[in-house]
C-alpha cells in the first residue's frame, strides 16, 4: 500500500495520506522479506528549478500556467480539474476491499487498520461472521461496501475511538447506518475476546 501511495502521488500529482493507528505505530511485528524487485509504477518526471525553464508551483488558486488568479472561471476549471483526479483514481486504481471469512454470513464486521489482526483471530470463534477490511477511505469503495454490508443481518463496526468515525463515514458515503458499534477509547488495542463477546 505504501508503494502504491508513492505511485499514486506521482501519477495524479497529489499528496497521499496513509492513515495509521496507535497500535500499528507502537507495536512490533515480524513479516516476510519485501519483494523489492519490481518494475512499472509511475515515472518520476517533471521540471526542476535550475534547469533553465520557468515555472510556478502555486498553492494559491491559479490558472493553467501556474500564475495566481482570482478569476471565477479559473477557480471553477481548476476545482473541476482537481476533483477529476479523484474521479479518475476511483475508476482506474481503487481496489475492491477484501472480505475475510465466508462470503455469506449473518454478522459482518467492518473495520480498518491494526484491528484486522484481532478481528481475524476472533473470526475463528465466530463461524457465522465475516470481516470487511477497508484500506481506502477516499476515494471510497462505495458499491462494494453497499453490496457486502446489505447482505448481512447484522453489521458490527469495531473502532478505537469514541464516536465511531468509520461507521459515520460509511453512513455518509453509502446511506447505511451501523447501529452495532464496538468502540474502545482507553488507549489500549482491541482484543479478540472483546470482539467475540460483542458479537455473541
Amino acid at each position: 500500500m505504501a508503494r502504491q501511495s508513492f505511485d499514486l502521488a506521482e501519477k495524479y500529482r497529489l499528496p497521499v495520506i496513509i492513515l495509521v493507528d496507535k497500535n500499528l505505530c507502537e507495536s512490533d511485528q515480524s513479516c516476510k522479506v519485501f519483494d523489492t524487485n519490481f518494475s512499472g509504477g509511475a515515472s518520476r518526471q517533471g521540471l526542476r528549478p535550475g534547469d533553465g525553464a520557468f515555472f510556478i508551483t502555486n498553492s494559491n488558486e491559479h490558472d493553467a500556467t501556474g500564475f495566481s488568479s482570482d478569476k471565477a472561471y479559473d477557480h471553477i476549471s481548476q476545482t473541476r480539474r482537481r476533483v477529476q483526479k479523484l474521479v479518475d483514481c476511483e475508476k482506474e486504481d481503487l481496489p475492491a476491499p477484501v472480505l475475510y471469512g465466508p462470503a455469506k454470513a449473518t454478522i459482518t464486521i467492518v473495520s480498518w487498520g491494526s484491528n484486522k489482526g484481532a478481528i481475524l483471530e476472533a473470526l475463528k470463534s465466530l463461524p457465522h461472521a465475516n470481516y470487511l477490511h477497508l484500506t481506502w477511505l477516499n476515494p471510497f469503495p462505495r458499491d462494494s461496501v453497499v453490496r457486502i454490508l446489505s447482505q448481512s443481518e447484522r453489521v458490527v463496526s469495531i473502532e478505537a475511538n469514541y464516536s465511531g468515525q468509520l461507521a459515520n463515514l460509511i453512513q455518509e458515503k453509502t446511506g447505511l447506518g451501523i447501529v452495532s458499534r464496538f468502540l474502545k477509547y482507553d488507549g489500549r488495542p482491541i482484543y479478540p475476546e472483546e470482539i467475540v463477546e460483542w458479537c455473541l
Partner: protein
Amino acid sequence: MTKLRDLITHHAPTWCPGCGNFGLWGAFKQAAVAASWDNTNSVMVAGIGCHGHIVDFTKITSFEGLHGRALPVAEGIKIANNRLNVFVFTGDGDCLGEGGNHFIHACRRNHDLTVILHDNEVYALTTGQTSPASPLGFKSKSTPKGSTDRPFSVLTLAIASGATFVARGFAGDIPGLTKLIIAANDHHGFAVVDVLQPCVSFNNVCTHQFYQENTYWLNQDYNPTNKETALKKSWEWDKKKIPLGVIYQEERPTYESLIQQISEKPLVEGQLDHNNLKELFSKYT
C-alpha cells in the same frame, strides 16, 4: 546576463498603488540583473501574504507554498540542489506568526538561504489585522481598541537564534536595498533582510514618511561582527533612530556544508537508487 526585461511576466502587479512592495520588487530585480540571477541558477519561494504575489510578477521559477511554510520548502530545495540561489520571500505575519518556529530553527541550523522579509507590520492581504510586528496600541480590524501585545524585534530574534547575516533595509531606498540583497545572497549561511515596507492601505503608523524621517544607515565605523553590540543595535527603534544596513555578520559552516551526502555534488545530479532495500532486509532475515 540577466536583463530587466527577462524578468517580466505577463501579469501586472496587484499591489495597491503606493505599496512598499513595489520598491522591494524593484530592488530584487535590480539585484538579479547585477548578479545575473536567472532560471539556470535561482529559485524563489514565497509564503502567503501580499508579499507572496511577487512570484507572479517575476519570471524566476518559484514555489508559493502554505502560510508560514516558505522556509521548510526552501530548505528542501537547497538540500536537493545546493548550487541554486534560494530566495525566501515572507512577511512579518507569515514568518513571525504562522512560521515562527520554522524561522528560529532555520536560523539555528544556518541554512544557506536568503530571506527577504516584507515587514509592513500588519496582515495586509486579509485587509488589516495586527501582526507580531505591529506596534503596541496598534488599531486594526482584529484589535479595534488597540493591540495589547508588544511586537518583538525580528533582528534580535534572528541573531539570538543563530542567523549569520542579519540586515535591515527600507523599500523606499531601492539602491541601498539592492546592495543588501546581493550581500545577503553572497553570504554563506542564513541571511535575513528585514525590509521596512510601508502598507498604504492598512497601516497608517509605519508610513513612507515615518521611515524617511526616522531611519538612518549605519556608518563605516559600525562593526557588524561584534555580537554584543549587534544585539544592542538590533533592538534600537525610536524617533530618528531606526538603523539600516548589516547589523550582524558571522562566518560559520552552513548546514549544507555539513551534510556528507552533498559534499561532492548536489542530490539532483545523483542517481535515484532508493528502491534497493535488499541488503537491509537480508541483514535481518
